[in-house]
């Protein structure tokens, strides 16, 4: 079973038999974990290796890393528009993440610190939107955005429809409810308005939740595929996920070294965001799990 307190075995050093069994169990755990990590990581590890090989080696079974990563990358970065796709995706993901966080904070502020008619109805309306994924709305959304709003091939088309966040509103609301109400009372008595309270008190107290949410929302926005695929007909406005499909299609013969370099680069921004906010990510969840 789990070793709950790492210090415990040392305290019972006289009992050697259980300890050696425990040590053996630990090695089995290590072996099983290493194997799992390798199997799960295999597609990505192989992609990274293949992305560094020259086009003559990439189709062979060789698994030796080469030195051609930047050569592979520069091919697709310019000729296949990858640089442009990356920029578009970055603009969209940053705007959606910032917008969703701001709007969700404001909505949670209203839901937790105000009493107003139809509050329950408004909250239900926000939550119910979780049941309406883009994929289901895509036919009508396409008509609305391209024909009625005339937004086809603009950044607005892939940013604005995604700015409201039910998950964010819900999580911030949960988090605000866990902050003692007396704090807000004291702030109000001192003449602090709701917006000031939000920016000076609530946001500094919510960094974990904001961080956790930012990871989820950045990844969600970065991964968008079906909507950009239908609404962006102009290639220089396309996002990188759909761009990957174009990389595979370029010419008759796919340059797999270049495609793998493209896939690796596409995976980088979410990985960077995830690494940077990893602490907040796990804390933000653990916190709301406890409370």
């Amino acid at each position, binding site marked *: *079973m*789990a070793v*709950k307190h*790492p210090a415990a075995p040392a305290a019972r050093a006289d009992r050697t038999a259980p300890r050696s069994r425990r040590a053996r169990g*630990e090695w089995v*755990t*290590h072996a099983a*974990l290493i194997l799992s*990590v390798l199997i*799960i*990581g295999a597609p990505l590890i*192989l*992609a990274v290796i293949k992305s560094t090989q020259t086009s003559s080696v990439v189709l062979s*079974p060789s698994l030796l890393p080469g030195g051609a990563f930047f050569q592979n990358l520069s091919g697709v970065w310019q000729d296949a528009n990858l640089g442009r796709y990356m920029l578009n995706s970055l603009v969209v993901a940053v705007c959606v993440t910032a917008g969703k966080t701001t709007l969700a904070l*404001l*909505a949670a*502020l*209203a*839901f937790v*610190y*105000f*009493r*107003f008619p139809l509050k329950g109805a*408004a*909250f239900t309306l*926000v939550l119910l*939107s979780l*049941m*309406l994924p883009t994929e289901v*709305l*895509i*036919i*009508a*959304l396409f008509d*609305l955005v391209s024909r009625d709003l005339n937004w086809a091939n603009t950044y607005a088309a892939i940013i604005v429809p995604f700015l*409201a966040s039910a*998950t964010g*509103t*819900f999580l911030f609301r*949960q988090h605000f*409810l866990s902050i003692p*109400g007396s704090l807000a009372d004291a702030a109000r008595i001192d003449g602090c*308005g*709701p917006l000031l309270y939000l920016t000076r008190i609530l946001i500094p107290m919510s960094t974990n939740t904001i961080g956790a949410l930012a990871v989820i929302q950045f990844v969600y926005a970065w*991964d968008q*595929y*079906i909507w950009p695929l239908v609404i962006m007909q102009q290639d220089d406005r396309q996002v990188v*996920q759909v761009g*990957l*499909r174009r990389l595979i299609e370029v010419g008759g013969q796919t340059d*797999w070294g270049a*495609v793998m370099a493209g*896939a690796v680069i596409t995976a980088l921004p*979410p*990985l960077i965001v*995830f690494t940077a906010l*990893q602490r907040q990510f*796990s804390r933000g969840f*653990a916190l709301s*799990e406890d409370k």
Partner: protein
Amino acid sequence: MLSPARSRPAPDDAGSAVFRGRALPWAFLLPSLLILAVFIYLPALQTLRLAAYRANVILGTEQFVGLANFAELLSSPAYRQVALQTLVFTVLTVTFGLLLSLGLAWLARRPVRGASTYRLLLIYPYALSPAIAGTLWLFLFNPEIGLVNQLLGELFGVRPRWLDTPALAFGLVTLAAIWKGLAYNIVFYLASIQNLPRDVMEAAEIDGATPAQVFWRVAFPLLSPITFFLVFTNIIAALFDSFALTDILTRGGPYTGNAGVTTFLVYQLYQDGFVNFRTGAAAAQAVMMLALVAFVTWMQFRVGERRVHYGS
């Protein structure tokens, strides 16, 4: 976090009213509500309307047909096959995906040396998009130049046509979807396992329960709320996130019976809406998927409240 116990809409009086103002809360809510109304609820209503019409793109005309679009879909062998394939795919990915991630999270919960590194390596693939997953698997399982076939060819002298053989293509997409979902599930299972009540677990150990008994009789029931939440999110992911994966990996093919074997509901909707320009048929499919999501959500609340053990 979003465990089912707490995801019910809170009553009106949740939270005390601290700040006053009639218009102020609505001003804070306005941006969110406006976006939801224009880009979620309006298109939802519009989808309902479109489903009752047959549109002609070339002439730009619309003709009211009532429920004819639905009747056509339900009687179409191709659509029935697609629905059945989606069901099998969903059941397989959700079942095996959750079992595998629970097992891995249970393994990674142990406080061995380097535990946090293992955990990090297990949840890193969360940052890979379905489109990247499709691209990587497309290369790995390419019949001629893919590493998998080069390996199989060397060792066993076989080079399966992964993407052209219906059974293999279906299995491949299912496996890729399970792989793609692992990290997300492990994040939630790890968090829940670390929050299991220690006294209960230790009591079971002291009473002489074997590791298997501790897992199945104590931990598994205590984890049922998160399992239940994950079943729900995984069903939704299998229904919707599979689009990018299949679009890159198999393009819905290979064709068998009346439809492509990896053509699932969303892929069919996309094909009808944006390739074949059968707007009415696509809208009708959207309405049926909406009913499906509503049904799954309803099930989550109904079954969830009765059968799931919510711990202390």
